[in-house]
């Protein structure tokens, strides 16, 4: 089947569950009617790319802060610093008690 052929990733044909992706798509809006079989497959790859890019950028922030553990605040900073992630700014800021506009020195003090 195509799934074996398209497998290139280390975690099997699709590293994200297609049924769940489809559920999330359906809940996106009132005018989402029918979804073709291939749409969740496209998303499984696109989401992988998103996670990879956001993780890479968050990691660069963590390194600047001299840590080897990725924290939520690193992800938040990466989102804010990247134009195409503008749509995520409110989401990551809304419930965040993580102060974003700290000076580097103040940020360092938070880490333990």
């Amino acid at each position: 089947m195509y799934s074996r052929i398209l497998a290139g990733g280390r975690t099997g044909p699709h590293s994200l569950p297609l049924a769940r992706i489809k559920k999330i798509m359906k809940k996106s809006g009132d005018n989402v009617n029918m979804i073709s079989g291939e749409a969740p497959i496209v998303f499984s790859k696109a989401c992988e790319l998103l996670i990879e890019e956001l993780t890479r950028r968050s990691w660069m922030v963590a390194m600047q802060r001299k840590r080897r553990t990725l924290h939520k605040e690193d992800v938040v900073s990466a989102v804010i610093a990247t134009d195409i992630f503008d749509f995520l700014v409110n989401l990551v800021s809304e419930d965040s008690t993580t102060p974003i506009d700290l000076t580097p020195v103040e940020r360092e003090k938070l880490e333990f």
Partner: protein
Amino acid sequence: MEDINMAAGASNAHDDDDDDHDNYIREQERLLPIANVGRIMKQILPPNTKISKEAKETMQDCVSEFISFVTCEASEKCRKERRKTVNGDDVCWALETLGFDEYAGPMKRYLHRYREHDQADHRANQEKG
């Protein structure tokens, strides 16, 4: 005597537990599994680095928001063109439109390969019959 005006804190403990459970299920359904998300993150990072649980949860939220964001754009296109079904091309188009043109290229190739093999399987199955 019954207190009709129940204070906000007063509650029926049994109902609250049911609500919590239902909310938990709903919450899980709107997110991709943390194990899958965490695995993809880990593959990008150098060995011996750790990821906090909160960071993974934030990533889960971001991915779901991404799916909604792109899907809305794709389904709006379908609505304007009076089509009922959002297909792979619509998703690719929406990715490009929303600034994810770096993803759109690999996506189109991925979709192309998927369709080719899907057709090949279909033909193979027909020949068997």
